[in-house]
């Protein structure tokens, strides 16, 4: 029983990562209307920078600095992808399929360049004692577990607060709804879109870095992480941040439970299969009656 419960808790912690990836991908998707698959490669780039900057000291300060550096790089690259690739294509009237292919091309180039320049090997964060587990109420928890949960809540609260309570957030909602009309009423659509792309690209590094601390930063792992994030976005409903976050947790928990009951290699199969059935039944996603954000 305890093993199963621990597996679910571990899954929930991983779900925090999926939730953060889902929420940031969701905002990017709503702003750019592009299926930004290069999110995965930019995430790898940010995580690789974070590992390099954080060094081997293993202190929280070094890791925080590393993540900030990775986030800064990811923010710049995401904004550049929007300005130099997606926007020109959208202005030319490119279809969603074409912008997806463009993003796929960017994914291939960014990932390959990072691997060639920095080396293709897996990388490990020097997290020292943060992964050491102690028993709390029969559950094995580590500092990293607590930090993942805290970061998930922080990111969800920050994005929700931005959209609900700030003027810029209301303007962003307006431009997501109708960019032409938003421009007409004086909203600086290009500036806000670019800044939001940079912000979401930067915040997403939290997910990639925490995932890297849980295991390691790998080139093969970024696409599945992104896909689980996107799955959370689809399950929660693309226009609902809160439900996207909850869906991320659910995806992680189901994966953890499946890993405890079935052989490990079936866990992502179960998650994808269940999620796909849900999406086919309810393509718009969403499961609670919560106001869209």
């Amino acid at each position: 029983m305890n093993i199963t419960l621990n597996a679910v808790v571990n899954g929930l912690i991983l779900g925090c990562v999926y939730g953060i990836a889902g929420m940031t991908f969701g905002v990017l998707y709503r702003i750019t209307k592009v299926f930004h698959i290069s999110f995965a490669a930019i995430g790898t780039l940010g995580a690789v920078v974070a590992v390099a900057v954080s060094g081997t000291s293993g202190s929280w300060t070094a890791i925080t600095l590393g993540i900030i550096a990775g986030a800064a790089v990811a923010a710049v690259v995401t904004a550049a992808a929007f300005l130099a690739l997606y926007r020109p294509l959208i202005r030319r009237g490119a279809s969603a399929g074409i912008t997806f292919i463009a993003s796929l091309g960017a994914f291939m180039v960014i990932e390959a360049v990072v691997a060639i320049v920095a080396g293709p090997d897996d990388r490990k964060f020097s997290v020292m004692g943060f992964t050491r587990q102690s028993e709390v109420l029969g559950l094995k928890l580590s500092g990293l577990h607590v930090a993942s949960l805290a970061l998930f809540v922080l990111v969800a609260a920050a994005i929700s607060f931005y959209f609900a309570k700030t003027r810029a957030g209301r303007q962003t909602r307006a431009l997501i709804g109708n960019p032409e009309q938003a421009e007409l009423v004086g909203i600086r659509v290009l500036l806000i879109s670019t800044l939001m792309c940079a912000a979401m690209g930067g915040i997403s590094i939290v997910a990639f870095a925490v995932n890297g601390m849980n295991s390691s930063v790998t080139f093969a792992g970024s696409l599945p992480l992104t896909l689980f994030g996107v799955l959370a976005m689809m399950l929660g409903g693309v226009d609902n941040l809160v439900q996207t976050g909850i869906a991320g947790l659910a995806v992680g928990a189901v994966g953890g439970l499946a890993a405890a009951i079935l052989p490990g290699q079936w866990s992502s199969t179960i998650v994808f299969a269940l999620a796909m059935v849900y999406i086919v039944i309810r393509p718009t996603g969403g499961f609670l009656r919560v106001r869209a954000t």
Partner: protein
Amino acid sequence: MNEVYLALLIQFAVFAVVALGLDFIVGYTKIFSVNQGLMLALGAFSYSFCVKTLGTTSLITAWAIGIAAACLVSLLIGVISLRVRGDYFVVISFGVQIIGMQAIFNSSSISGGASGAFGLPLPSIFGWTPSSLSQMAILAVIITVALYLATALLVRSPWGRLLRAVGDEESAVEAAGFNVRRMKLVAFVLGGTFAAIAGPLFVGSIGVAQVGDYSLGLSVSLLAMVVMGGAGRLAGGLVGALIFVGVPYVLTYTHLPLTTAAFLQQAIFGALLLLVVLTMPSGLTGGIALGWKNMARRRASHVGTDTTASDDSGRLPTGAQR
């Protein structure tokens, strides 16, 4: 011919067939599916199943099993595509690829698990077994040419033109009373069938079937291959396959470590894909065709200018001279 070139020719033939099949889905119905790697794997592992479990190298048996499996999975994906569209379908498509490959990996009696199936012999057809790589290459080329001709006939038939119309203006085709759903399903089944035909040829020629060779990355590269060559164009698949097979070969001359060369190849494919999307939306073949047409038009107008110039040179038109 050198064995290296023969192996390259077989690979070109295999990926040309895969591209021709994928084009039914991506080029004609304009559905971006990332499953062709899985379909190729179904064909490949059906052959390793035939060799290891059934004790036969018959291509026909491997095709029967592989095509049946690919058709079933394609139908499932096709049915999902009718309900979930656009970007959401891409995610579902990624999901099917992951689920399918994990299922194959976990069925170690078929796939050989992590180590894969080794020592696969050249396949036989109608009791004839190629005795050398050159005979295998001839067989692969014959199959590719036959499928190319069949595809050419199909896409130029009324059904093919209708399929293209489904991709361009689905609602108009539906309003005209045609069964769009069935057409999309047939496109998926054709795509799966072509890949399942290519699979046994591929593993039969290299002698190995490993799950790792049919990753998500391969499916992404196959999609890139078709778009690069020119989706919805017969020659597009061939050009895409040529690039797909040719670039890694050219990179062997750089003597880079294998992993670096693989990432360099990925960077080149990605850059080509971006170049195509930004400058030639109809792919390399479409871009070349357009360039050729423009050049011909310019030449024609140039000739026209010359005629005018000679008219303006003082000579009167024939009638006036008279």
